[in-house]
């Protein structure tokens, strides 16, 4: 499993900048990650760290301007998607790589029925008969656990609840059996109970269909059950990466340690919940050196000026904190 052959999606040193009025917002600033076949990879980080931007870039959905892809590659099965023209990119979207978005309430088109939208997802990539189109749509809606799928086809999005809409979004994403599904905080906008259901659904679908899933979230807690590997993102860069057990039991970056300490079920009963002081820096005003240093309780003098390189702990476990690395040996 560790050879490079079954790598489906590989983002290499991706840089995505936004040209704001006077400033340059370096939203994604040299991010690399990989998704292998049949694997669930989680991209975790606080709000504003560039998760959505890096995901949208893989599908060529960054508006340019104000956005600019300033460097890097997005390799899908070895082909750089950033080199593709509009027509070729369209054949990738939804067909090979599909995406589920953060906001189920606004992500479906209000003037078309659920049936129209699910069927469209099939039609844009495949030529199928009307009856087959209908059968497949119903099957998809059933697969994502929507009750009475036959009747849902004629419903408009506003007639569904948030959780149901997200299921429809997932059905659309699965419509053409894509190899990679990117789920961008699919549960953030939902009630807690519904969140668990949707998360479980992703787990099931991934296992049944042997999907490669890139699951994006700001909540390290929710990924414990589904993640094979985890990337921790901070201020436009990956600060730590490794297998799920390693990240959870042997975190090697102060930021990851802070995220873990702030999980409710990890804190000792009665103890006050830990939280990392401060907030993610605005990508237009990032501190120099280690971008985490203003919030880091281990920071030393050099952290303010030296950009931290990746330190290798073996087995694919890497972390961008030389201070901890040196301290350990």
């Amino acid at each position, binding site marked *: 499993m560790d050879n490079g052959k079954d790598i489906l999606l590989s983002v290499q040193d991706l840089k995505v900048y936004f040209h704001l009025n006077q400033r340059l917002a370096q939203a994604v600033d040299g991010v690399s990650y990989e998704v292998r076949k049949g694997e669930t990879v989680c991209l975790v980080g606080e709000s504003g760290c560039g998760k959505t931007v890096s995901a949208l870039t893989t599908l060529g*959905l960054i508006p340019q301007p104000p956005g600019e892809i300033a460097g890097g590659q997005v390799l899908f099965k070895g082909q750089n998607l950033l080199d593709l023209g509009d027509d070729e990119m369209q054949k990738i979207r939804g067909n090979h790589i599909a995406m589920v978005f953060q906001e189920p309430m606004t*992500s479906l088109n209000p*003037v078309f029925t659920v049936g129209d939208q699910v069927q*469209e997802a099939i039609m844009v990539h495949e030529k199928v008969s009307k009856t087959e189109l209908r059968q497949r749509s119903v099957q998809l809606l059933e697969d994502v656990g929507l009750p009475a799928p036959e009747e849902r086809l004629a419903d408009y999005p*506003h007639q569904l609840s948030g959780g149901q809409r997200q299921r429809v979004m997932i059905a659309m994403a699965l419509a053409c059996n894509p190899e990679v599904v990117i789920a961008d905080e699919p549960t953030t906008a939902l009630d807690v109970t519904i969140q668990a259901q949707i998360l479980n659904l992703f787990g099931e679908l991934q296992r049944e269909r042997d999907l490669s899933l890139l699951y994006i979230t700001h909540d390290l807690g929710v990924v414990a059950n589904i993640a094979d590997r985890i990337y921790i993102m901070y201020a436009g860069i990956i600060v730590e990466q490794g297998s799920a057990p390693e990240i959870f039991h042997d975190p090697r970056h102060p930021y990851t340690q802070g995220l873990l300490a702030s999980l409710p079920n990890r804190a000792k009963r009665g103890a006050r919940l830990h939280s990392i002081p401060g907030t993610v820096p605005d990508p237009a005003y990032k501190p120099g050196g280690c971008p985490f240093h203003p919030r880091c309780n281990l920071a030393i003098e050099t952290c303010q000026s030296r950009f931290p390189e990746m330190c290798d702990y073996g087995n694919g476990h890497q972390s961008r904190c030389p201070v901890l690395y040196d301290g350990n040996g």
Partner: protein
Amino acid sequence: MRFVHSTTRPSRKREDTVLSFIGRSVIQKTITLFFVSIVSFLIIHLAPGEPSQVDPLNPKFTPEMVERFRKEFHLDEPLHIQYTYFYRDLLTGKTVSWKDNQSVLGKIWERFLNSLPLFIVGTIITWTLSFPVGIRSAIFRGGLYDRNATFFSYLLISIPGFFFAYILIIFVVTQFHVPVIGLKTFGIGDAAWPRLFMDRVWHLLLPSILGATGGIAILSRYVRSQMLEVEGQDYVRTARAKGVPEEQVHYKHALRNALLPFVTMFGLILPGLIGGSVIIESIFSWPGMGRMAFEAILARDYPVILTVNFISAVLVLAGTFVSDLLYLVVDPRIRL
């Protein structure tokens, strides 16, 4: 509007809702019309100035004649009696103008037929130009096309209509040597039909274009902003992420949503049928509704003013009714 965006499944069938909406709407609008009739009647009768026939300062009429007119027009009766007289006559179609004793409905109908071509051609020009321009501007926002469209919109909005009219008239008359004032060229009556036809077209075109310019400038801006707003919505991004071709993203997913508010406007052009522009009709000596209404106001010809007013009110209410109904048809979220 009393519309709400529903978040739950509607319990009743949509057809029933539509029928009950129509019923309620007609009753509401009739009541509104009744109050409008009272208020407009009061405003016109209480406004300063007297009908020219009973104006004591008018040297044409002796006090005896004035007295006779007052009696004949029921001006000596209390207002509520006058009100009943007026609307009784209106509803039975017997209202006559005080100025020339002609049937008001007949007069209006004649002027209406004159104004209708202007209205139709103007509206067609406005709507067929504004939409493509606005949509294109939005899709290529910030580009050369968009910047030019923006420049011309503001130019057209800021040039006064009469000024623009004279430039147009001078241009057309000197370049094409065709007369453009009035409904048709004076004394052209016995010419061959192709010439008659072209003459009508020329006379119609200029005032229509002029009437449309302001509308095009404003409507195309509105279409652009509506389209821009929709283009930024999440569901447009979803469509792209599905692999929908760019054309369809714009013209199917975005446009369908951007058009919703214009459906409302479509009903609201109905009152324009009776409006007509006083300025344009005056410049082009066009014997239309606008000028008739304006002259009636100057002469305090109450029956004409009130009838025009009443018909406008009916058209406004009918227009909003049509809008609501259209909205109901095109926006699945509307629950009544």
